[in-house]
């Protein structure tokens, strides 16, 4: 924790804190409404902590107790940690490290011997969890079948717009980045979009020239979006072929795909 940073860790107040918490969660995990948050946060089995700096909530974490099967019909109670997030302006100040310690102390005080959580291998948080003795158990595959590629493309841009609206760090990354991108996709032909006035816009007809032009497949694109393939590696293997684009623009394009806006 930074030397001059004064903070309070406390439980949230019903009817008062939902808006700010929803805002922080939206910035980290994608759009969350106050209603969605309320349906989860006030359940008796969920314990939530928030961190307040100068009277403003900047961080959130919750715990839910579950019993996990460890074999032979024996279930062991675990402290399931979730919703770990800090607003982008207050990151790298040790707030989450401190919140994490207090949460683990709370779990131990409740007489629970172990804890479990879900995260991403590529997220900075993964290293924090390792410092608290969390070990990787299992990554998980999922299966996807696309039936309507153009619709999925439009939905992806809509989702990006929602995310940018909620995320200050995304807004900062994309500030004045007014570019046009053409994607030549194996399964659905050419799709194009631009980022202008703080919004992603689908271009019904591909422009004659673009700032970034890449040829790839939907399958590769999804693998990059989900963190399975590294954008840099797909360029080396030719799975993503860059036809046009300078390196700074390609770095931003990568962030748009992975939706990881932090450095």
């Amino acid at each position, binding site marked *: 924790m930074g030397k001059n940073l004064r903070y309070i860790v406390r439980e949230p107040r019903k009817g008062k804190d939902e808006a700010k918490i929803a805002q922080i969660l939206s910035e980290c995990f994608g759009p969350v409404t106050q209603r969605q948050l309320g349906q989860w946060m006030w359940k008796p089995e969920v314990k939530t902590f928030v961190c307040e700096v100068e009277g403003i909530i900047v961080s959130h974490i919750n715990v839910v107790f579950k019993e996990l099967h460890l074999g*032979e019909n024996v279930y062991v109670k675990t402290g399931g940690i979730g919703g770990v997030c800090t607003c982008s302006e207050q990151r790298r100040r040790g707030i989450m490290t401190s919140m994490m310690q207090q949460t683990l102390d709370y779990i131990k005080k409740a007489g*629970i*011997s*172990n804890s479990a959580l879900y995260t991403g291998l590529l997220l900075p948080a993964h290293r924090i969890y390792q410092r608290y003795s*969390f070990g990787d158990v*299992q990554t998980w595959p999922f299966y*996807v079948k696309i039936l309507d590629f153009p619709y*999925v493309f439009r939905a992806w841009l809509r989702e990006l717009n929602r995310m940018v609206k909620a995320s200050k760090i995304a807004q900062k990354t994309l500030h004045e980045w007014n570019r046009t991108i053409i994607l030549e996709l194996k399964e659905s032909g050419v799709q194009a979009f631009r980022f202008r006035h703080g919004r992603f816009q689908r271009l019904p007809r591909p422009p004659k020239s673009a700032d970034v032009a890449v040829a790839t497949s939907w399958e590769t694109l999804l693998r990059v979006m989900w963190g*399975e393939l590294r954008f840099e590696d797909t360029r080396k293997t030719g799975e993503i072929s860059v036809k046009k684009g300078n390196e700074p623009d390609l770095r931003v394009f990568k962030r748009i795909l992975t939706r990881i806006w932090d450095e």
Partner: protein
Amino acid sequence: MTLQIRLMQSKDAEPLLRLYEQFVLSFVGSAKRDLKQFQGITRKRDSLRWVALDEQERIIGYIWASYVKGRRTGRIHEIVTDPEYDFEAAARSLIDKVCRIFVEKGAAQIQAGTIQNPCYNRIFPQLGFWRMNPDGVFMYAILDVEKFLDEISPVIIQRLKRMRDWNGLLQITCENTNRLYRKEGRNVQVLPPADVDTDCCVTFIMDALVGVLLGATDLQKALSEGKIKIETSQTKKKTNELMNAIFPKKQFLVLDYW
């Protein structure tokens, strides 16, 4: 075998809970559920919750899916079948049914996720699904080794009891904390920690203990990397038999997110 498929009904909650409990026995990591949760699953009427019945009209499998209209996305949350039946056969009929409904509703994409039912690999790629391996990871930490060793004792005891050809004193150690198990025939006792000579002493680093219990670490690999150390006067064959019996390779499967 002919399977009958029908929509879930409120009266199915109890048999579905029993089915789930049977199903997760073959895995580790799955969360305990209660009747209330299944009452919640069966209560919703959205035509995306189906059960498979055998010839005696017994529920032998279920699928639970949902459709997000605004995103035109079909999501298959859970497929659970009776371990006595062929997962693929039962699951396939249920998936076919749900996928047809998704198409009728105008789905632009269908997603199916689980951590991690290996049978999915034999079904979904054949149906034209792409397998994605996102960077998401389930992490686990032991916070209180002393208590954790007590909690897993019933697992060790039951596995030791099943061993016919091994008798003696076993010590499990992790982070300088140990538990002693004395086995004589079918009788297994946990003894208070003591500095005594044992027939087999297994010392784990914390990660390795979690890894072998949750099916994330290969026992032999952990031994060769020195994450697990064994001191014993017994033959290598007997020691291997003991280790494989107490820490069998288990498949990790989580169906619940939080």
